[in-house]
C-alpha cells in the first residue's frame, strides 16, 4: 500500500513536469509529435529506473557519513557521484541496446545521449536523496512513477501541440509561447490530484 501510494503520488502529485519542472528542456524540444515524445518518455523512464536504485545504494553506503571510518563524511561528493553514475550508465545502456536490441536502438537510441544531461534524471536522484527512502524498493517505485509521470506529461503536450498546429494562434505566441501556457493549464488540472492519500 505504501508503494502504491508513492507510485500514484510520484505520477500525479509530484509530477516531474507540472510540479517540479524537471526535464523541461527536452520536454519542450522533443514534443512536436506524439511518436518521438513517447520514445523519449520511455527512454527517460528506463534510465531513471536503472540509475535511481544504483544512486540509492551509493548514497546509502559510500556517501553515508562514517562509511569509511569515523569522521569521514563524503556526502559533499554526492552531486559529482550521481552525475558520473548517470553519464556512465547512459553510455553503457546505449552500447548494450545497440548491440542486442537494434530495433529498440532505432527508436530509442537517438535520445539516449540527450538523457545524460536531462535534469529529470539528476533531479530524480537528488529528490530521492532528499526524501531519504527507507529501502531500495521505494527508490525503484519512485523512479518508475516519476518516469511514467514524465512520459505521461510529454505525451499529452505532444498530442496537444499536434492539434495546435492547425489552429489560429497569434503569431508571437506560436510554438513556444502557447506550449508554455498549455503546460501551465495542464499543471492546474494536475493540481486537483493534490492531497490524495491511498
Amino acid at each position, binding site marked *: 500500500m505504501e508503494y502504491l501510494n508513492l507510485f500514484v503520488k510520484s505520477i500525479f*502529485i509530484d509530477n516531474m513536469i507540472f510540479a517540479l519542472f524537471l526535464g523541461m528542456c527536452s520536454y519542450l524540444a522533443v514534443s512536436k509529435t506524439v511518436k518521438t515524445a513517447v520514445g523519449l518518455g520511455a527512454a527517460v523512464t528506463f534510465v531513471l529506473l536503472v540509475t535511481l536504485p544504483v544512486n540509492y545504494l551509493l548514497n546509502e553506503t559510500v556517501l553515508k557519513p562514517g562509511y569509511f571510518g569515523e569522521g569521514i*563524511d563524503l556526502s559533499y*561528493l554526492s552531486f*559529482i557521484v550521481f552525475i558520473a553514475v548517470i553519464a556512465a550508465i547512459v553510455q553503457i545502456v546505449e552500447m548494450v541496446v545497440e548491440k542486442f536490441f537494434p530495433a529498440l536502438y532505432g527508436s530509442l537510441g537517438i535520445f539516449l545521449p540527450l538523457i545524460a544531461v536531462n535534469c529529470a534524471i539528476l533531479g530524480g536522484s537528488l529528490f530521492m536523496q*532528499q*526524501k*531519504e527512502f527507507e529501502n531500495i524498493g521505494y527508490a525503484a517505485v519512485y523512479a518508475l512513477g516519476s518516469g511514467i509521470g514524465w512520459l505521461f506529461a510529454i505525451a499529452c503536450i505532444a498530442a496537444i501541440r499536434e492539434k495546435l498546429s492547425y489552429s489560429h494562434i497569434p503569431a508571437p505566441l506560436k510554438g513556444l509561447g502557447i506550449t508554455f501556457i498549455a503546460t501551465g493549464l495542464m499543471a492546474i488540472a494536475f493540481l486537483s490530484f*493534490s*492531497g490524495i492519500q491511498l
Partner: protein
Amino acid sequence: MALNRNSNVYTVIYATVLTVLVAVLLTVAAVGLAPQQKANSDNEKKQQILSSISSVLGKDVTLDNAAQIWDELNMDQNLLAVNVEGNQLEGVNVFELVAKQQFSKGEVKADAQLPVFCANVGGTTYYIMCMYGAGLWDAIWGYIAVDAEGQVYGCSFDHAGETAGLGAKIKDDPNFAAAFCGKNVWKDGELASIDVNKPGKANRFVAGGEHVDCITGATKTSDCVSVMMFNSLSGYKNFLLSIKPMALSTECCGEAAAPCCGEGEGYCKGESCENVEPENK
C-alpha cells in the same frame, strides 16, 4: 612533440589528473567550510527551539540572537531525553537527537529517545518538546512549549515543502503559532492535544478539548499539523503525566491527617483536603 589527443594513454592520464585535482579542490572546500555549516544548522535548531517560547522571552528569536539566548538560559545544562514510558534516559546527546528518527509513519516509535529542552525563565520551567509528522507534500516538524500543567506557551513550526503562501504559513504567519498560546493539552486527565480545525468545530481527539482555527486555504496542511501534534504529544504523554502536579482531592473519607481518598493527592485536615503533609501521621 605533439601529443596525440585521441590515444588511450592520454585519455586515461587526463581523466586521472582531472579527477585528482577536482577531488583535492572539493575536499579542501568541504572541510574548510564544514564548521561554519555545522554552526549554521545548530544555530537554526536553537532558533526553532527557542522560538516556541518567544512569547515568554518577550522578544523574537532570530538566527542572530538564538545562540546568545541559548547560552543565557544555560540550555545546554537543561536537556533531557525521555522514552515513551516517561523515564529519563542517561548518556544521550540530546541536542543531536534527530526528531525524524524517533518517528515511524507519523507515530512515535516504541523505542524512541525523545528530547525535552527545559527552559527556566522567570522561575517557571517550560518544557519544549519536538514534533514531527507528514505534511501535505512533505515532512513538517516543530516544537511546542508547555508548563508542568500542560498549558501551551508557544509553538514553532517548519516544513520541507508546503505550498508557499498557503500551507507554508504554518511557519511564516506568526499568528498561527501564537493561537496555540494559553491552550491546555489536557482535558479531564485525557491528552486532548490541540486540534487545528475549521472555526467553530470541536476538538476531534477528546470531546471538549481545545482547538485553534486552521489556516484559510490550507485545510490539509492544518489537518496535518493537528495530527502531528497529537501523535507527538502522545509519545510524551507519560512524561507529561510525570511532571503534572496532581490536583487536590475534594474528598476526605478517612481519619484526619490521613491521605485523602479518591483521585488526586492531599491530606485530610478536618473535613477538607490540603496540600500540606502533616508532621505526625
